């Protein structure tokens, strides 16, 4: 006959094993529930929070990780055999026979009743299925799992950006908030690159990007202002980083617009691009191009979100006044070439080639030229070629030239003729002082480069004189040291 103590321990072992399994299942289901919940949220947020995986794989990973964690956590929990047997006694109405026997089995020499009690308990447990003693396995979160799985699929199919909800809760324009946050993200990436490569002006630009992003995210800036600042940043970025783009560009960009009257900007930029001394070895052109494209997309999205039709350098609707006006509220900050409104307009004018060259040289003299990018070198393709769309139709010079004489900071119309170009130069002293280099140093460099640029044949003689006057006016002539 089998030892009653051994038999009893065997039954208790079965019971605890089953309880352990139940615990494991409950933990796994609980973990799966929360994993799927996290996965659904992640899948929903994939529209903006770009995970390295797709929505469904990401949700699957979340679910798997949750299930594993839940099961692992349940394994850490102790299965209390005494509590199990107390529950079993209650189920069977056995007056705590099994739980008492558990203690008696642990130390068999406890009194005269020890053996019969253990025998009775072993017989009791043998006659009952462990499942009945433990009760039906209840997985309380199980019914929700199909719903959650469906939510994951729906979230993958129709991603919903949670920031929209947050923005609506804060009574903000969710579209602008999203754009602002994305802008901050781009700014941060750019800042990292600039810091890594020691690019001071790029660093400043990145910080401006982030600042604009923050203002957008906080809804502390008007949409029109935001559009203008974004356009400025876009142009400056294009000037800052000459991507050597060879593809087709918008009309307002730099390029040799041989057919000046048509104003259709070609990509083959022959204009004297200021600010290109960033060598291929210092910056990845593709990376910068990507960033530039992202900015453009952002701006377009913001325009769409704001419901306006503002563009930085031009509009598809050339009949609108804005199509012929430079978008920036600030005067050109540098004399760089193509992206500036003046250059845009210059591209449309009959003397676009001169205007471009002039603009480029002007950039060499502007404060933007203080950057580490250095003075421009002529005949370089424009990096901003694709950033500022040109108007499809070109207006007469009288329509293009202008600007608000009451407002010294109003956009300066582009140069469609030599006279207009002169106006632009006088009134377009840059106000941005993001460079870290002292003025005296960069001005001297700029003057030298401007002098070098002026010596090129394609620069009209009148404009050479004009540039010379400019440097004279600011106290540093091309020949001065």
């Amino acid at each position, binding site marked *: 006959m089998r030892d009653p103590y051994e038999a009893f321990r065997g039954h208790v072992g079965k019971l605890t094993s089953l309880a352990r399994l139940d615990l494991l299942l409950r933990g796994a289901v609980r973990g799966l529930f929360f994993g799927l919940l996290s996965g659904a949220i992640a899948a929903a947020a994939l529209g903006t929070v770009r995970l390295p995986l797709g929505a469904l794989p990401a949700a699957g990973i979340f679910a798997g990780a949750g299930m594993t964690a839940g099961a692992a956590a349940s394994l850490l929990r102790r299965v209390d055999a005494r509590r199990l047997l*107390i529950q079993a006694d209650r189920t*069977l109405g056995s*007056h*705590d026979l099994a739980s*008492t026997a558990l203690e008696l089995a642990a130390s068999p020499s406890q*009194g005269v*009743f020890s053996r019969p*009690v253990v025998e009775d308990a072993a017989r009791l447990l043998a006659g009952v299925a462990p499942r009945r003693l433990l009760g039906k396995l209840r997985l309380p979160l199980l019914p929700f799992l199909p719903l959650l799985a469906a939510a994951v699929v729906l979230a993958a199919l129709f991603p919903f950006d949670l920031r929209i909800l947050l923005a609506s809760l804060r009574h903000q324009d969710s579209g602008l908030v999203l754009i602002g946050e994305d802008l901050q993200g781009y700014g941060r990436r750019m800042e990292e690159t600039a810091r890594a490569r020691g690019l001071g002006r790029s660093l400043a630009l990145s910080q401006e990007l982030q600042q604009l992003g923050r203002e957008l995210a906080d809804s502390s800036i008007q949409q029109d202002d935001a559009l203008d600042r974004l356009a400025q940043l876009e142009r400056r970025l294009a000037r800052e980083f000459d991507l050597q783009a060879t593809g087709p560009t918008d009309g307002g960009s730099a390029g040799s617009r041989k057919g000046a009257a048509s104003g259709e900007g070609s990509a083959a930029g022959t204009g004297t691009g200021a600010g290109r001394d960033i060598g291929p070895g210092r910056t990845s052109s593709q990376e910068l191009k990507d960033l530039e494209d992202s900015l453009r997309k952002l701006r377009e999205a913001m325009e769409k979100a704001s419901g306006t039709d503002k563009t930085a350098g031009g509009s598809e609707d050339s009949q609108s006044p804005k199509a012929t006006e430079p978008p920036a509220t600030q005067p050109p900050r540098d004399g760089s070439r193509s992206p500036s409104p003046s250059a845009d307009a210059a591209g449309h004018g009959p003397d676009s080639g001169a205007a471009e060259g002039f603009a480029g040289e002007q950039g060499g003299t502007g404060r933007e030229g203080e950057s580490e990018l250095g003075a421009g070198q002529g005949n370089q393709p424009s990096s901003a070629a694709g950033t500022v769309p040109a108007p499809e139709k070109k207006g007469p010079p009288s329509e293009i030239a202008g600007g608000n004489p009451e407002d010294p900071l109003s956009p300066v119309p582009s140069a469609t003729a030599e006279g207009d170009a002169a106006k632009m130069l006088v009134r377009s002293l840059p106000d941005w002082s993001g460079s870290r280099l002292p003025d005296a140093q960069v001005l001297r460099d700029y003057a030298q480069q401007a002098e070098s640029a002026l010596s090129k044949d394609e620069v009209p003689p009148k404009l050479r004189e004009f540039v010379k006057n400019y440097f004279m006016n600011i106290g540093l002539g091309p020949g001065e040291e």
Partner: protein
Amino acid sequence: MEVREKARQVRESVLALKEEIGKAIVGHQAIVEGILVCLFCGGHALLEGVPGLGKTTLIKCLGQVLDLVTSRIQFTPDLMPADIVGTNVLIREDMRAEAGASDAQDRRIVRFQKGPVFANIVLADEINRATPKTQSALLEAMQEQTVTAGGTTYALDAPFIVLATQNPIEMEGTYPLPEAQLDRFFFKLALDYPSPEEISRIVDRTTTGLFPSLGRIMGAGEVAEIKALVREVPVASHVKDYAIRLALATRPGTPLATEMVGRYVRYGASPRGPQSIVLAAKAKALFDGRMNAGFADVRDAARPALRHRILLNFEGEAEGITAERIVEDVLLKVPEVPGEASRSPDDARGAPRDS
């Protein structure tokens, strides 16, 4: 004899006792069982009930079926301790017959005259009518089962059980039992009025001359064996812990004390409380034919074991709170296993759980 067989015999014996007593006593099954628990646990019972409920008859019947010596002491205000325990008396003996002497010679000796406490079953009727001094005369007998008189200690015969009664009404001229004496009672059993059917049977038995004669079921030897067996019944540690927590919960100021206890109780159960509960739970389990005590046994034992060990404060008495209500509240609030939810009122009344 195998222990399992012993346990079965105990159950049959107890059933036989109840049945035999039931021939004379109508109803009061719980009281009879309580008295038997006290008897087999070596404790004493305090019976509280209005006059005419058959307390004295019950105790006489118990003596008959157990074939034990019974005595009855009617407690009155002028009762003296010596009237209970006995006293030394001076006896003059005539020595002529013994010595065969022709001269008449008397010898005077002091002899202890045993009081009524020298019996197996002592009925202390209306114990609260005697003075505390007299009441306390029972203390030594109840606790140590000895009597000391004139510097000599006399052992009482086993089994020894004091069954005291007290009348909850007519409190004028009574002396409530001191706490020390109350604590020495294993159970306090409350007799209630019989039901109409029971009264009808009582009337029939007492007015027709058909009062049954009771037979002997067991003697002192069997009682001693059962007493020893009761103490062998195992109690799991969690069951024992439950009994202890129940007793602790009656003490105000302890973490386990219920809100009602904190408000209305001045003193809670002493360590004799859980002792009584666990021992009674063992006896109840054995009476039921089981060889282990469980939570239900503890709950059943807790009511009579705790109710006289709870001393209400002024606020409790002023608001008419009874010790029984305190015990019920404790049973309701204290979970069987720490961390579990409290019991429902139905559970607290003793209904088995999940069954």
